[in-house]
């Protein structure tokens, strides 16, 4: 499963987020990998899930992209809950 952490420039925020997403994927035993990318490139990049701050996810909507919004980029708890909900269907 391919995850893409997205931010404006694709080097700061999205990298931090990808570190924690990869940590969570491992914890949840999800076979997947998260890379990070800037918003402009992400628009044409194919991934199973796009993850990032609500402002950035709003700009990625459309084309059937599955997006996951995260408010606290460094909260493993929030990221875990969001991935459980969106990917595993756990409420």
């Amino acid at each position, binding site marked *: 499963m391919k995850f893409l952490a997205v931010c*404006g420039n694709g080097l700061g925020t999205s990298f*931090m987020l990808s570190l924690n997403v990869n940590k969570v994927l491992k914890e949840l035993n999800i076979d997947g990998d998260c890379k990070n990318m800037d918003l402009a490139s992400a628009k044409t990049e194919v991934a199973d899930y796009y993850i990032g701050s609500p*402002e*950035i996810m709003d700009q990625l909507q459309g084309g059937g992209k599955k997006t996951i919004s995260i408010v606290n980029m460094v909260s493993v708890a929030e990221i875990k809950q969001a991935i459980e909900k969106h990917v595993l269907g756990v409420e």
Partner: protein
Amino acid sequence: MLSTRLTSELVQFVPEIDSWEKAIKVAAEPLLKKGAIEDKYIEAMIHNVNEFGPYIVLMPKVAMPHARPEDGVKQLGISLMVTEKSVLFNEEKTANIFFVLAANDANNHLVLLQEITEFLSDQEKVDALSVAKNYEDVLKLLGGDLL
């Protein structure tokens, strides 16, 4: 390491700043003085928020203004500013801790970011940093030694 890179001249304590644009400017000043960034990098960081929204507010209280290496970074650098009063980005996002990041290529800042991520994952440390009053406080929280 974060604690060795954040020397005292790169850390500021400010009572209050009335806009996020000014806050980014003031927070980045030590890097400008040091020659790590050019003026246009500050403009790029502000433009970045105007274009993409305040996603640089990574978590409640904490912002990490940054732009791209080609926007005017001369050397890898980071500066820190703590304001007593929170700075408003929009109705939902405010920050009083500013880590300004200047990355001079896509890779060599990653270790630094990893360290910041680890630090920010510890809510107690973030809470303590948001009320830090001096450089010694900061250094203690970052796990460094006073030279």
